[in-house]
Every structure is written in structure tokens, then in C-alpha cells.
């Protein structure tokens, strides 16, 4: 069926002098929901536009259903796309908007009507069929844009940040509708977003892209299931990008290696034990130790670090403590559940549970965690 395969895909706008995307290899199975995430400028939208044919492919192969489509114009690729700006045809009613593509392919009027009515039913657009886009709200327009690609029965759905123009509550609602829609239609879908919550909740598989660094081989950082990326980030970039608030990183060096546990000495001299396989590392290697804000404990007896409080945010359900610590890379954020008042400048001792620690070598690659939580 409609699987999408990307082999060594490159994109350059200046004939090979500099690249936006480099060596993208990706297998998307039939019926899978894949999310492309990454900070702005990482080329995720460009990659999507290459898949639908709005951007040409500098080198590499793109195939849909085992058919190489590199040189196929967008109108022949049979993919559907939902734009961030909706891109509805303003001079047509909702019905005409949805029927436009079908009319071009000269499909029988009765069939067109049936498909439009069905899509309208699915998306609760029936009362709006004879309205023009300007008489509709943002959420309604977005549903029309989705309906317009549904009626075409495309091989692959492409979404280019479809929810980013909606307000927060509508976004949550549309997110659930998209999830329902995908489980019903089971069409392969590729979804570009900078919002990792959307990616984590919707996708079967997340593709993390980074802005291409000078001399870097590829800007494809990691591909995997949402929780795999969360618990087993392959490198510092993914670890820092997935999860909110961001993971905390400490500078340190290995003082004892092991295939099960590792001893790390932070720059401040504090000793931390972690469950990571460092059997192939050497004592004295510089490492970065990572810990998520919500994994930090306040009542631990060992594996402690002490920082001074910089700011406190008490939100009711949770409290964020922002700490200064000499060995921290950017910011040290701790999420705790007690709501005591604490003064700025006060020293604050927290524990880093060994099984929650991530460890990254000097090249940014992760050491395998040996006691990560189980997930299916």
C-alpha cells in the first residue's frame, strides 16, 4: 500500500554549495502517522514540500508505493496536503472548495456529491457547505482544508503545521479530531509541527530534525516511537528537544566505568552514580549528565547536587524551582510538588535518581541506559 521511502535525500538551494537537508533516509510504513519535529529552520517543512512535489529534490530518491516520484509534478503524485494558512479558494463555497480537485479529474457528479457529503459529515461541516471561507472561523476553515484533501482519497496525507493558527482550546480539540480521523481512515500521514505535544500525542513515529551544522553528515537526528525518543534519546540534541521543560545538563567526567553503573564526577566535585553502560568509555572522559526536571527528588540521601535558588514559580499543581549551579550547561530547572515558600539565594539540595540519569559522551552520543522505565 502507500508506504513512503526516502533514500539519501538532499536539498540545496544554491546548486550544492550549501545544504538545507542532507542524507535523509526514512521508511514510512503504510497507515503510519509520522511527525517531523525540529526547531525552526531545520527544514522540516521543506522536506514535506519535497514529498508533495512543491520543491524539487536536489539528489536522492523519493518513492511512494514503490514508485519513484522525484520527477512527478504535484498534481500527479496523488497526495493530499493541509497548509498552515489553510489556502482555501476564497471565491468558492465550501462545497466547491472540496469538489474542486474531483471536478478537475472529471469524476461523475454523483460520486463527487457523495464524497463531499460524506467528508462534510465526518468533519461536521454539513451546515456550512454553501458558505464562503470568509464567513467561517479558523477552526471551521481548517476542517474544510482537511475535508478538501479527504475527498481526493490521497495515498498520503501531508500536514504542514495545521494547528498552529488556532487558539489553544481549539487546538486540543482539533488534535483529538485528527487522531480519530486517522484511526478511521488509516491513510499514511506525515505531520510537520514544532509543537512536541502534538507530535507526542498524534504520531506513531517521530522524526527529529536539526538545523544542518557545518560539516555534519545529516540533519536527521533520530527516528522512533514517541516514548522511545523520550526515554532513550540518542544524542544531546534529541534529549534537549524532546520533553518540556527541557532536560538539565551537567558537565562532568567519568570516574568509574561499567556495563551496568557509572560514576560521574561533576565539575563541582559532586559524585553522581548513574545506570548507564559505559563499558567502552575510559576513566577521565568528559561527559554530559542529563536529568529531566520532573525526575529530580528533594528528599534523596545520595546522588545529591546543591544549587542556589534563582527564581521560584508556584503554579498550584506544581512548583518550578530555577537554580544556579556551577556545572550546569544552560539552566537548571526542577519540578517539585511541595508548595513551600523559598527565598531567592537560598541553597537547595536535590537528588538525581541514578535510574533517571542520561549520560552523553563528548561527541554528544548517548550511553545506553540500563534501568530506563518500561513502556510498550
Amino acid at each position: 500500500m502507500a508506504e513512503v521511502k526516502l533514500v539519501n535525500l538532499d536539498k540545496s538551494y544554491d546548486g550544492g554549495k550549501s545544504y538545507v537537508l542532507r542524507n535523509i533516509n526514512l521508511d514510512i510504513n503504510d497507515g503510519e502517522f509520522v511527525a517531523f519535529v525540529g526547531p525552526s529552520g531545520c527544514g522540516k517543512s521543506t522536506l514535506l514540500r519535497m514529498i508533495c512535489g512543491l520543491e524539487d529534490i536536489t539528489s536522492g530518491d523519493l518513492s511512494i508505493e514503490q514508485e519513484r516520484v522525484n520527477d512527478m509534478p504535484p498534481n500527479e503524485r496523488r497526495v493530499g496536503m493541509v497548509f498552515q494558512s489553510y489556502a482555501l479558494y476564497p471565491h468558492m463555497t465550501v462545497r466547491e472548495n472540496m469538489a474542486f480537485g474531483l471536478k478537475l479529474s472529471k469524476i461523475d457528479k454523483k460520486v463527487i456529491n457523495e464524497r463531499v457529503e460524506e467528508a462534510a459529515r465526518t468533519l461536521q461541516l454539513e451546515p456550512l457547505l454553501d458558505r464562503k471561507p470568509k464567513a467561517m472561523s479558523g477552526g471551521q476553515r481548517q476542517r474544510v482544508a482537511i475535508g478538501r484533501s479527504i475527498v481526493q482519497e490521497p495515498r498520503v496525507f501531508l500536514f504542514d503545521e495545521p494547528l498552529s493558527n488556532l487558539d489553544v482550546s481549539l487546538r486540543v480539540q482539533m488534535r483529538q479530531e485528527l487522531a480519530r480521523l486517522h484511526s478511521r481512515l488509516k491513510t499514511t500521514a506525515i505531520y510537520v509541527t514544532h509543537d512536541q505535544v502534538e507530535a507526542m500525542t498524534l504520531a506513531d513515529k517521530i522524526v527529529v530534525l536539526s538545523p544542518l551544522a557545518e560539516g555534519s553528515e545529516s540533519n536527521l537526528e533520530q527516528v522512533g516511537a514517541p516514548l522511545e525518543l523520550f526515554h532513550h534519546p540518542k544524542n544531546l540534541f534529541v534529549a534537549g528537544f524532546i520533553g518540556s521543560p527541557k532536560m538539565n545538563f551537567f558537565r562532568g567526567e567519568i570516574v568509574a566505568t561499567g556495563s551496568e553503573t557509572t560514576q560521574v564526577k561533576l565539575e563541582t566535585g559532586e559524585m553522581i552514580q548513574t545506570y548507564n553502560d559505559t563499558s567502552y568509555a575510559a576513566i577521565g572522559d568528559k561527559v554530559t549528565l542529563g536529568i529531566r526536571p520532573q525526575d529530580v527528588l528533594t528528599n534523596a540521601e545520595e546522588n545529591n547536587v546543591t544549587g542556589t535558588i534563582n527564581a521560584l514559580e508556584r503554579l498550584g499543581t506544581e512548583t518550578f524551582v530555577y537554580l544556579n549551579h556551577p556545572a550546569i550547561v544552560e539552566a537548571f530547572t526542577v519540578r517539585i510538588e511541595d508548595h513551600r515558600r523559598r527565598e531567592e539565594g537560598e541553597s537547595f539540595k536535590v537528588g538525581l535518581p541514578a535510574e533517571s540519569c542520561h549520560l552523553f559522551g563528548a561527541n554528544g552520543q548517548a550511553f545506553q541506559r540500563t534501568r530506563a522505565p518500561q513502556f510498550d
Partner: protein
Amino acid sequence: MAMVQPRNLKYRVWAARLFMILFICIIMFPFLMIISVSFRSGNFATGSLIPDNPSLEHWAMAFGIPWENADGSITQPTFPVLIWLWNSIKISVLTSGFILLLSTTGAYAFARLKFRFKQSMLTSMMILQMFPAVLALVAFHTIFDKLGNFIPWLGLNTHGALIVAYLGGVTMNIWLIKGYFESIDNALEESAAIDGATPWQAFRHILLPLSVPILAVVFILAFIGVIGEYPVASVLLQDMDKLTLAVGSKQFLNPQNYLWGDFAAAAVLTGLPITLIFLLAQRYLVSGLTSGGVKG
């Protein structure tokens, strides 16, 4: 909106109205004078605005009806004014149509396609347009004189030649339409392409319907420009029954005998098709066609 207004606003509004009424009077006066002259008996350019002894003799001449004078003598119409009018309308409609065709397609290329020398072509078009067509009168005459030997309908003294000569005026319109096309989000055509439209279908079904207002403006401007054009038409056309109204009206003004009345009637007649076209095109001059399509 209930914005608080200063108290002396009322007087300022009245002053503004008075100024505008005066301004309109100044603009309208020559026009009213021409109408007045066309209804005045005899051929006098001066006189009161409302004719003392109104007569339809000049209009009869314009419509080709013999006029019986007060002394019983009959004046035969001297010139085929209605044929001139028909020529003018024919040439203007055809030229404007072709200009629309050429400038929309040209503007599409400049607005949406990427090709070498695009910017320099645009600039050179702009610069070329700065030289009035009058400067090329000699060239027009020679070119169409020679061309007529091979293609009879493009020779001197044909309407074909005149239309082709006028088509040189598309460049300004290309700039106009290009600017409008660029204000329409490219995502609309991209989304049409994904819906299965070829570039031509996207142009025809998405871009053109959204550009109707500017197309109407270009059509009207081209029409007005062509129907009143004198220099080129006066050089290319010679036969009495081939002339346009603008060139033909000059025939009334002999050095010895200025037939002001007949001239005025013909001049008013020139304005009629323009008015008609404008009234027809007015309903396409609507704004807000593109609103609601994209969220920007």
C-alpha cells in the same frame, strides 16, 4: 464609530463640501460646453451654456440623417460618423481584449515563474514604455507599409495594423497585473496543484477569478486609451470609411471652416461607449475577493 469630534467640525465639513462642489463645477464645465455647442444652431464655439435656440441639426449630421434647414434647403451629412463610431468601438474592444490576454499571461510569467533576465526584462519594459508611441510614427508607417505587401490585412490603412500597433502598450498593464498577482498567496495555487490541477488549470480556475477587479481596470484603461488615441491612428488610417471617431472628428475642423457643432456632437458620441463599458465593468470592480482564503 462614536469617536468624539471637535465642535467646529460641522463648519469644516461644510467648507469641504463647498470646495468639492466648486471643484466638480470646474471639471464639468468644458464637458457641459461641448454638449451645449452640439445642441446650438450654427457652428459657434462661444455662447451661453443653455443654447438660445436649440437645434438638433448637428446630431442629425452625426447620425447621418439629412437635415432640413429653416429656409427649406436640405443639408446632406458630409461624413460617415456612425461608421467611424463603429470602427472605434471595434478597434477598442479588440485591442483591449488582446491586451488583456497578453498582459495577464505575461504578468503570470513575471509574478510566478523563475527565469533568467526576469528583472532586467521588467526594467527594460518600464523604460521602453517611457517613450511615447508618437516617437515611432515613422517606423510604424514604414513597417506596416512593407508588411502590407505580404500580409494584406496588416498593411497601411487597415484596422489590423492599428490593433497590432496598439498592442505595444501592454507593458504598463503587465506591471499592474503582476503587482496584483503577487498580492495573492502562492499557497492557493500550490494547493490547487496538490488537488490535481495543472499550472494552466490553477491559473484559469484560481488566479484569474481572484484577479477580476484588476482585469476590469486594465480593460477600461486600455479601452479609454485606444478610443481617444489620435497620432498613430491618423498616420496608419487614410480612407474616409476606415477612420476612427477620434481621427474623423478632425475632418470637421477645416482651416477655413470650423464646424464646431458637428465636431461637438461627434465628440460626445465618443464618450458614449466609454460610459457604457464603464457601467458594465463597474460590477467587477469589487474589493475583498481574496479575503478568507488564507490566514496570514
